[in-house]
């Protein structure tokens, strides 16, 4: 087999094309029905490869990596910023209400205090959603890297290169390796499960 750039075998596209030409070149005289079917299959395969290359070219990967994904991550960052701002304003209001409750006293103050506590609890959403959005941003960046790697492999005549694996930091501590953020509902364990688990250690 002829070698491509740098002494490496040529990529799949040229290899398939060369194989088709070799098969056709070996066919002298009339084709049998089986050979004709094989030829049709090979032609179809060639057209599919050509169409796939065109479709990948039309993806305009530069738009994805330079515009779409950065824009999406900026939007997600803005969501985190806006929710943080709104949450802090809610907390400002709660702190004012706590002072009012202190002046009122009695049952009304207790009722107000309970309501304020529930608002504080609910405001924890900002932390959870922020962490979830952080996970989405990480996923988008991984998609960006994979798309770029696949496109490069199909579009260039350079030897095939596998998509970059997700970065692994060999110096990461156990705390960092286990830090994945919030689990989807049903995927993690509940507070009751955690309490039982900890009790098992005691």
């Amino acid at each position, binding site marked *: 087999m002829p070698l491509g750039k740098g002494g490496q075998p040529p990529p799949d596209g040229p290899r398939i094309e060369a194989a088709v030409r070799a098969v056709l070149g070996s066919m002298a005289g009339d084709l049998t029905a089986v050979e004709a079917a094989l030829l049709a299959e090979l032609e179809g395969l060639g057209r599919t490869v050509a169409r796939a290359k065109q479709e990948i070219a039309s993806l305009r990967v530069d738009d994805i990596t330079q515009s779409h994904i950065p824009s999406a991550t900026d939007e997600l960052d803005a969501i985190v910023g806006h929710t*943080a701002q709104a949450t*802090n304003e809610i907390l400002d209001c709660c702190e004012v209400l706590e002072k009012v409750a202190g002046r009122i006293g009695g049952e009304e103050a207790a009722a107000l205090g309970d309501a304020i506590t529930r608002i504080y609890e609910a405001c924890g959403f*900002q932390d*959870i959603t922020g962490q979830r959005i952080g996970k989405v941003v990480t996923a988008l960046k991984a998609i960006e890297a994979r798309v770029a790697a696949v496109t490069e492999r199909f579009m260039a005549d350079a030897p095939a290169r596998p998509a970059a694996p997700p970065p692994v930091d060999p110096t990461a501590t156990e705390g960092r390796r286990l830090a994945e953020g919030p689990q989807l509902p049903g*995927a993690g*364990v*509940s*507070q009751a499960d955690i309490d039982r*688990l900890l009790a098992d250690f005691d």
Partner: protein
Amino acid sequence: MDKNTNVLIVDDYKTMLRIIRNLLKQLDIENVEEATDGQEALAKLRAGNFGLVISDWNMAPMTGLDLLKEVRADGRLKATPFIMITAESKTENVVAAKAAGVSNYIVKPFNAETLREKIAKVMGNA
């Protein structure tokens, strides 16, 4: 729990620090200091006198688990009660935290009653 106990709360989300501080205030716990990651927390712990640490897990550069390990490895700090409040809710996280010496573990989102109950338990007045 002694109302004069100094409590260090650690979280990289400023809003979360504010929420926990306000919830602690409702429990009459007002001597509260804050840190936004494990390294800052460790420096404050070594410089101060804290009777309770309430820490998030997922922070950079030093995580809550790494902070816990540093605390337990420090001769002066090793007996300090340490509560993890985190969104990390996988069993392996809880097991790793327990192996590192966590006093209790609260999964986010949490409510004020859970916080009160866990503080009471680790401070010995449950």
